[in-house]
């Protein structure tokens, strides 16, 4: 019985945490913050608009070792990528509108690094007034933390 309550409390906290912390986050398509080394995974980047303005651009810095293969087609957004000398995607920029009180999800498939590691997903979110929120703090308790996925 006690175990049950602890589990319930844990679940509630987790649910509340995901509601309260409206950060730009990257999770697996299953909603997990972990994935398997060397496997092929679909990820979703979720970006909320948190100002009384529209979000106009989202730029993702792809962590080294993650090989993006394909993107979900997204109506209303123009996507452009930068690649390294081996043709591997290093940044992705989506231009489009995420209105007030809205969020958008950007899905992509990628091959995970072969070795266990922590992937840090840095995201720059641009608003219609030109201001940029940089989700790049490597401290998870920071004000604008970079999203993390543990590769196990």
């Amino acid at each position, binding site marked *: 019985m006690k175990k049950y309550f602890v589990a319930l409390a844990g679940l509630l906290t987790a649910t509340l945490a995901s509601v309260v912390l409206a950060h730009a986050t990257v999770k697996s398509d299953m909603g997990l913050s972990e994935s398997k080394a060397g496997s*092929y995974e679909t990820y979703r980047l979720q970006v909320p608009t948190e100002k009384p303005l529209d979000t106009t651009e989202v730029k993702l810095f792809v962590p080294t070792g993650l090989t993006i293969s394909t993107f979900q087609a997204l109506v209303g957004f123009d996507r452009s990528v930068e690649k390294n000398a081996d043709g*591997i995607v290093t940044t992705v920029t989506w231009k489009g509108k995420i209105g007030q009180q809205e969020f958008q999800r950007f899905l992509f498939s990628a*091959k995970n690094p072969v070795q266990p590691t922590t992937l840090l997903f840095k995201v720059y979110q641009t608003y219609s007034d030109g201001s940029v929120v940089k989700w790049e703090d490597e401290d998870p308790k920071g004000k604008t933390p970079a999203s993390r996925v543990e590769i196990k």
Partner: protein
Amino acid sequence: MNSRIFTATLVSFLLAGVVLAHSYLSSSSILANSILKTMPENLILGFSEPLEIGFSSFKVYKLETKTTDGAKLKLEAQALVTRVLALKNDLTKRADDGLETTASEAALVKLKLKLNLKSGIYVVMYRVLSVDTHITQDFFTFSLSSH
């Protein structure tokens, strides 16, 4: 009957899987069917999706042929590909000098070409594994003209 439908469904699923999520050749520094006056130092192949380089092979061979007929040439090139693409330790017979690309995953692949190659028809062939584990195999030809 049911099992036949099942088999047919399975086959179509398998075929669909083969068609989707493949990495295709999307660019090449030497164009298919082109005629070159000089051989460049390397060949850069671009693919639509990243590849597992360790599980992919890329080769350039000279096609020894006297035919000038396009269809016949293609058949001869195909026969050559069937014969040599899976060969190991065949670098001495090849027109390329191996990979310049050192990354384990890449969508742009650089192949060194040997020096002093003779004029004639060359076959670029590849069998590649995309990072989402699909295999694509194909080839194209180009020619090097005599000066």
